[in-house]
């Protein structure tokens, strides 16, 4: 097979694989999925009961070159070096690192060489940090796949099969989980380097499978990189490096770039409806954009403060966002009219949300950072329309990062400060009760938030250390 044919094959395969995206608990991009729900719907080992029972362990930590962005996660890959469960993490040093997250070993590490006529920024600022700023992305499906079949209740994790019957005994072992199908062909990792090039990397090797393409101007503060439907999207903010603020889309078929510039309004983030509509919040409004072209379909003014999130309530989609006054909105995805407006009373809402649906009652939950705590809202019906009802709030934390949800367990990160190390908490998604904390396991403070996948939660800290907590198959 010629190199070009192989590249095309891999690209095609990666798009095809995206259709099966999260069956194995994958985390495709920052915010987990195209809707930015920051959630893993089912997990074989992380449950409320299992976390209470001690399933969460400090698994490993790896020092990286540069400050890590939140990893993305793919598992059961058949590589030329064996079956691997890999995460991919970009760092401020323009490195992309692949780690076998089950064993905590680096699988490959790629440095993305700076290739721009612009002089690279060596020393960034808090507003405009230097180096690669955006997390890498995998190919994210637009429509989340159905959750895997039930896996035998909510019993604690632990070595499967460990409770087998003795000779002549008659114990009652739990049903053994089945593994997701392994992936036979390499998918792709999309990385936006500090020089503004988009790299399409082979998941198994870290090598560019096609030539890197010019996407945005170098030295920008880019984030929210995500590949959806063979188009990579990114946003830029704060005018860093002279890059206009806006939403950017590069079509990988022809490297054509479209943008929606937002002038002096920084773009806060993106989320996708299942019909492909792109929602972008800025410091001056929210817009619904056409996929690929980024043509404005609808927009609404407002001083937004969060990345949008798209949720589904009884088969209807809503856009969730918040403004600088702490209001939490549910908007109609077509008209962008307000459907729900929860007054904020001046509270500070964190930069993004999380959402999950409780399996039995079908209750939709929305999680946000409000001031210094994680708060949970329930979506309820009142007089024939929907409303948000605040249910619980966690204890106060130090600069809490946006939470994530794994199978009904909320993970919240007290990001810490220069004098206070970060602490990861697991909370009961229904009650907010603290189930577990990482205690003193994390040495530094975090600036990069958390992500999850394959029964693990990952936390990066300012000193370049990536921590993994959760459940790993015992090797011995």
């Amino acid at each position, binding site marked *: *097979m010629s*190199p070009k044919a*192989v590249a095309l*094959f*891999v690209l095609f395969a990666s798009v095809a694989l995206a259709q099966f995206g999260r069956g194995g608990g994958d985390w495709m991009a920052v915010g987990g999925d195209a809707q930015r729900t920051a959630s893993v719907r089912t997990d074989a080992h992380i449950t409320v009961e299992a976390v209470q029972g001690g399933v969460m362990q400090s698994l490993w930590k790896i020092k990286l070159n540069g400050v890590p962005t939140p990893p993305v996660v793919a598992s*059961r*890959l*058949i*590589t*030329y*070096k*064996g*079956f691997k*469960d890999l995460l991919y993490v970009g760092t401020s040093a323009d490195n992309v690192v692949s780690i076998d997250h*089950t*064993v905590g070993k680096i699988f490959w590490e790629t440095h993305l060489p700076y290739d721009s006529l612009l002089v690279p920024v060596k020393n960034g600022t808090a507003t405009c940090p230097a180096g690669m700023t955006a997390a890498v992305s995998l190919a994210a499906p637009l429509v989340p796949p159905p959750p895997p079949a039930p896996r035998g209740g909510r019993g604690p994790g632990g*070595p*499967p*099969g*460990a409770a*087998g*019957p*003795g*000779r002549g*005994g008659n114990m*009652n*072992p739990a*049903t*053994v989980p*089945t*593994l997701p199908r*392994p*992936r*036979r*062909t*390499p998918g792709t990792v999309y990385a936006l380097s500090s020089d503004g090039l988009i790299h399409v990397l*082979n998941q*198994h*090797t870290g*090598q560019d*499978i096609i030539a890197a393409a010019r996407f945005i101007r170098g030295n920008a503060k880019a984030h929210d990189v995500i590949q959806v439907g063979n188009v990579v999207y990114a946003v830029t903010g704060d005018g860093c490096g002279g890059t206009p603020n806006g939403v950017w889309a590069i079509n990988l078929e022809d490297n054509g770039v479209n943008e929606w510039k937002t002038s002096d309004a920084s773009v806060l983030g993106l989320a996708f409806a299942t019909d492909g509509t792109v929602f972008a919040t800025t410091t001056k409004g929210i817009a619904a954009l056409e996929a690929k072209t980024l043509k404005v379909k609808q927009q609404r003014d407002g001083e937004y403060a969060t990345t949008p999130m798209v949720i589904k309530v009884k088969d209807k989609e809503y856009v969730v966002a918040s403004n600088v006054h702490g209001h939490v909105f549910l908007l109609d995805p077509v008209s962008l009219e307000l459907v729900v407006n929860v007054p904020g009373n001046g509270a500070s809402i964190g930069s993004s949300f999380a959402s999950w649906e409780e399996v039995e009652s079908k209750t939709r939950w929305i999680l946000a950072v409000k001031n210094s705590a994680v708060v949970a809202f329930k979506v309820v019906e009142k007089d024939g329309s929907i409303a948000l009802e605040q249910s619980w709030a966690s204890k106060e934390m130090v600069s809490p990062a946006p939470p994530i949800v794994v199978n009904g367990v909320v993970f919240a990160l007290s990001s810490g400060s220069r004098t206070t190390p970060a602490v990861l908490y697991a909370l009961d998604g229904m009650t907010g009760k603290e189930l577990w904390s990482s205690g003193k396991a994390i040495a530094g403070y975090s600036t990069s938030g958390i992500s999850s996948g394959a029964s693990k939660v990952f936390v990066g800290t300012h000193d370049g250390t990536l921590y993994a907590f959760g459940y790993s*198959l*015992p*090797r*011995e």
Partner: protein
Amino acid sequence: MRTSRFVIAMALGCAMSCAVTFGADWPTDGGNPQRTAWQKDEKILNKDNVKNLKIVWKIQLDNKPIEMHSLFPPLIVDKVNTPSGPKQIAIVAGVSDNIYAIDVATAEIIWRKHFEYPTPARRGRPTDPLCPAGLTATPVIGPPNANGSRTVYAMAGDGEVHSLNVADGEDMASPFQFGYPNGKSYALNLWDGVLFTTTAQGCAGNPNQMWSVKISDPSHKVMTYSPKSGGLWGRTGAAIDESGVAWAPTGDGRYDPATQTYGNGLVGAKVVGNELKLQDYYIPKNWAWLQSRDLDMQVTPAIFKYKGKELMIAASKECRIYLLDTKAAGGDDHQTPLDRTPLICNEEVNFASAGIWGSMASWEDAQGTRWILSPFWGPSHPDFKVPVSYGPVTHGAVVAFKLEEKNGKYKLTPAWMSRDMDQAEPPVIANGVVYAFGSGENTEQAYPDRGLDDNSPERIHDSTHAVFYALDAETGKELYSSGDQIKSFVHFGGLSVANGRVYLGTYDSILYCFGLEGK
């Protein structure tokens, strides 16, 4: 087609005229039903003279390779009464449904059988090395009957078992259906009148299970046992213990005792009445890890007596060896072996070109020390400590352990690790000498640019050639190497040894016979 047209016998020295028979047989893959690969009756070759080994003959057979497979390990029967007098005969099966009977003294084909049958409706995917069509099970030779005749039982690619007279190839009985057409059965074994085989990889829709049939049963009822998960792909099929329990590894799969699902372990089944029934099983405690990384338990065990107990060794691609008691494999919970070695190789955790593959071997020296032998592929594990070794191992080696027992505790103690071999294959032992070979086979199944793409043409192209070695069984020291004399690689072939000769068939359908000049 006249077979003589395809015979290119090469006589070296006086090998063709001086051969003497000594009465040792190699009637089944692995040498015996217990699959110890130990030739106890070797009297000619020893550690002092094997340095003089040479190719006493080689013969080009007209067998057409299929998906990397070609010749299976020869079976050797001595003192066979033929119309032209008693002969020592090598029975060699070829994947293209061929059986050859070769006079080992003259390297001439005595008879040849080609099984003809309508093309089965199903076969494995073309270019898939896992599922070749045709004959895939090494035949087995039964004990002498009342007339002293020996029968070779061979399963053709259509699943029919043919019972052929070793002396002349004539049918001793009508063929009967045993296996699944193009179902890739593994080496036949024979115990107390019952034939056994195993299947894996679901070739042509064939279920993965253990199969048995009573030869004397007029209806030839096929009795099967399925572990419900994993394929039983130990290279030499099942090994049989003194109770008639056939043990086979179950490969990648799930363990769920609630549903009698026994993947990634070792199952023992026995013919009870007219059924093949599970008797016992062993599942490593880390089976889920093995499954997640495709590190199957997939090695045919070797069974032997030790201090009055019958023990068994098994292994996996993870690259450990397990010591088990055939009367209680894995103890009370079926998951506790008598001993388990540390990782010998496969630090990379690779499913394709690393780990232990094939089958095990074991022998006992004159002092009563029980030795355990295992081949492995790929680099040795950096944490594996062995007192005697011969340079870095990067492609594979044979490793030897001594079995020790103290106060009822059993221990596999590393003794030696051989020189580097290019994909070391299962060894055989005879008279203090270990015979081993690096297959030279390309074993890659996945590639950086494509991921999983296991295909025969590419692997054949990238294979090199086998190298045959003789090692001192007590030290692992190399006593002989065939160097570049073997021209092709080996896939699913194997060594046989008897009466001063060691045999190996290669992909190009050449059978090599190593021996001593004048012996």
